[in-house]
């Protein structure tokens, strides 16, 4: 599709944004025209969500220019962005499920008649919007609570459409959809494009990009590095542009030897995800799981640990398992409590006598772990909230070690951790493997998987591929398998 000769609906030039010392965006150029679907692709952490928050008015850029229809665009907040015709559909859907479709669509701008909401006008407007999206079969009076994820998304898009919609941003819109729902979504996106809406489509899935987008831009390490028409660009080219770098980090390796099988999954299926996961994990082995956010990796770990229901398949495990949550602040640690309590919580019998905690034992045990893991803290009784991300993560790991688990299930173990602590954690993982622990590690940071793991398997939309020696993988092939499901 040729870009229109008019000025772009939205233009970004040299946009920069830093959080403390971290430069999230370091020069993004990007433009999207009316009547065009523009895909924004990039690895996790490439800066896509920061860029979208700036567009939506949720945060302001440090530097750079934004233009909407040729006029400067600096939204003061989400409502301001909405009023200017820039609408965002987030991964977590934003609907009031206790209200009907029509009331959700027109929430905050209800047509009024004698102080009451004008039922007839609402119905007419919403019916029209749903028809324009090709979803006339949705009755505007239905309760949102009764709708499926695909239908809810349509309601959200209808909400955007009722205003003066110029730019629509879809953030990973298919992550919670079935294949059929996704196909219907693509039809909706095309209809919007034909009405002259500029659509920004954020996705990891290259097959989706090929199916729905006209042009694409690649974001990498906070920069826009490539841009072009989708037609005539091979997916492999896009993957190369997304990865684009070699191993930069230093990964200390501790020699370790794989022993007896500790954990075996046979076609494990969770309530929704994973769909089919089979693997064999041995003692003294580090097995990495690559894949995109939402592919079902976290769900697999949670199912193994027994936190999520299992729908099918089998889990065979010799020994105790312990899970390190990816949500350290929300779920992994009790932030206001001390290092000592966080470390021993759940296995306090080791530091107590007849049901009462013995302070001396608690102090000694905790001091042991602080020293063993090199946790930088004032003492065993310092609140975890005071520690840096890296030291917090070490406390979370210390808990697994205190519980003396045999199988460590680690979900994004170095997320939000500084480089120095990362290296220390890698070293620790190697030492644990050498002691005969089995380690299953989910990570979205590819160099880390390649550098630390013995074998790596890739999960794509709930299905886990075969585990192969790390040496047989490259960032490129991992990314390809993660985005397309096919091993390169």
């Amino acid at each position: 599709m040729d870009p229109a000769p008019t000025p772009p609906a939205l233009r970004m030039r040299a946009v920069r944004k830093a959080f403390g010392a971290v430069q999230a965006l370091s020069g993004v150029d990007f433009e999207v025209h009316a009547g065009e679907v523009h895909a924004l692709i990039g690895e996790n952490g490439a800066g896509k969500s920061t860029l979208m928050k700036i567009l939506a008015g949720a945060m302001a850029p440090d530097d750079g220019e934004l233009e909407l229809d040729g006029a400067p665009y600096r939204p003061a907040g989400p409502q301001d962005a909405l009023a200017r015709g820039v609408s965002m559909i987030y991964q977590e859907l934003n609907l009031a499920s206790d209200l009907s479709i029509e009331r959700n669509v027109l929430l905050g701008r209800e047509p009024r008649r004698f102080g009451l909401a004008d039922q007839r006008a609402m119905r007419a407007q919403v019916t029209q919007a749903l028809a324009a999206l090709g979803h006339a079969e949705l009755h505007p009076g239905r309760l949102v609570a009764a709708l499926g994820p695909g239908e809810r998304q349509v309601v959200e898009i209808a909400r955007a459409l009722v205003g003066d919609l110029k730019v629509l941003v879809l953030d990973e819109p298919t992550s919670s959809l079935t294949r059929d729902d996704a196909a219907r979504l693509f039809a909706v996106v095309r209809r919007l494009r034909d009405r002259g809406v500029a659509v920004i489509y954020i996705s990891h899935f290259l097959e989706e990009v090929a199916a729905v987008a006209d042009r694409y831009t690649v974001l990498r390490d906070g920069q826009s590095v490539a841009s072009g028409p989708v037609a005539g660009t091979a997916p492999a080219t896009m993957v190369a542009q997304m990865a684009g770098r070699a191993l930069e980090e230093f990964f200390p390796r501790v020699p370790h030897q794989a022993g007896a099988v500790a954990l075996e999954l046979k076609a494990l299926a969770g309530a929704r995800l994973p769909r089919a996961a089979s693997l064999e994990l041995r003692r003294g082995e580090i097995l990495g799981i690559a894949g995109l956010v939402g592919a079902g990796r976290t769900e697999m770990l949670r199912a193994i640990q027994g936190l999520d229901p299992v729908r099918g398949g089998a889990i065979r495990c010799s020994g105790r398992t312990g899970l390190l949550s990816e949500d350290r602040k929300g779920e992994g640690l009790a932030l206001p409590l001390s290092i000592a309590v966080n470390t021993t919580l759940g296995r306090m019998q080791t530091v107590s006598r007849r049901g009462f905690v013995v302070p001396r034992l608690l102090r000694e045990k905790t001091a042991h772990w602080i020293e063993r893991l090199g946790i930088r803290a004032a003492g065993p009784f310092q609140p975890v909230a005071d520690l840096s991300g890296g030291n917090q993560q070490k406390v979370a790991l210390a808990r697994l070690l205190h519980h003396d688990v045999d199988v460590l299930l680690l979900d994004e173990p170095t997320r939000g951790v500084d480089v120095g602590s990362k290296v220390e954690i890698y070293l620790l993982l190697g030492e644990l493997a050498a002691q005969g622990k089995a380690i299953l590690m989910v990570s979205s940071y590819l160099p880390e998987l390649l550098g630390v793991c013995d074998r790596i398997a890739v999960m794509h939309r709930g299905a886990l591929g075969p585990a192969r020696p790390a040496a047989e993988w490259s960032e490129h092939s991992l990314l390809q398998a993660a985005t397309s499901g096919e091993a390169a």
Partner: protein
Amino acid sequence: MKRGLKLLGPFLGLLVVVLFFAAVGPPGFTSFANFKTIATQTVIVGLGAIGMTFVIVSAGIDLSVGSVIALVSVVVALVLNASLSPLLALLAGVAVGTLVGLVTGLLIVKLRVVPFIVTLGMLGIARGVAKWLSGQQKVNAPESWLGGLMSKTVEPAWTLLPPGVWLLLGLGALMALVLRRSVFGIHVTALGSNEDTARLCGVAVGRTKAAVYALGGLFAGLAGVMQFGRLGIGDPTAAIGLELNIIAAVVIGGGSLAGGQGSILGSLIGAFLMTTLANGCDLTDVPTYVQEILIGTIIVAAVALDRFRHRCEA
């Protein structure tokens, strides 16, 4: 149609209680005079429950209602004692209730303290002010037509029920319309269902919240006037713990403390159910402690049933 289904539970509960006592046959249970008694006994909790429905649908809670009712009964008595007109006393009572509610709402919005805590504080403050104003004594007041609001000798006779009951039914119908059909009502539901969404869509979240508690206060004020009407005195120790009965009525009627759900009709059915149960027990000489156990059981059963229905739908 779903909403009809939701009301079916409390309605069936009410029916079961009525049929049970009709069958067990305490003398006079099914008489019109007794129905009038039950209806009149429901007025105070019912009015409170109308306001509380809005509060609970907005995902809030108001623990101060009992204290506000006592405060208002004292205020009404004091205004009457100042030999001002009964109408002025009524308006003063409702105004005081609304003002307390508005202050509560503004504290919740401006200080960002959760409703439970703010209204727990207000429970103490309003009760204390009531005792202070009344000199810690019951306040007698000259007789006026306010007493007639809750009187079982109805005049004129063709109105059948005391004015207070008609007021409850009329306001119930009006507020049901407001909750379901007005822009304000929709915004209250949206707020309780998903506050972030409501804010994103441009709903004036702060103003709506403050208005919800002011409305709750207004109805607590009306209930206070009725409390005065019932006894003819201002009593600073009246209605202790009554807020819990009011919350129970809303919850039995399908209100969810998580917000977004609840209906005026359901809450009123809940209120009627509790008074009918109490009345039937009184007539059959069942001790009060059995009533308390029964009502407690019904509250838990009603919510458990509602959860079960949700799971079946999902």
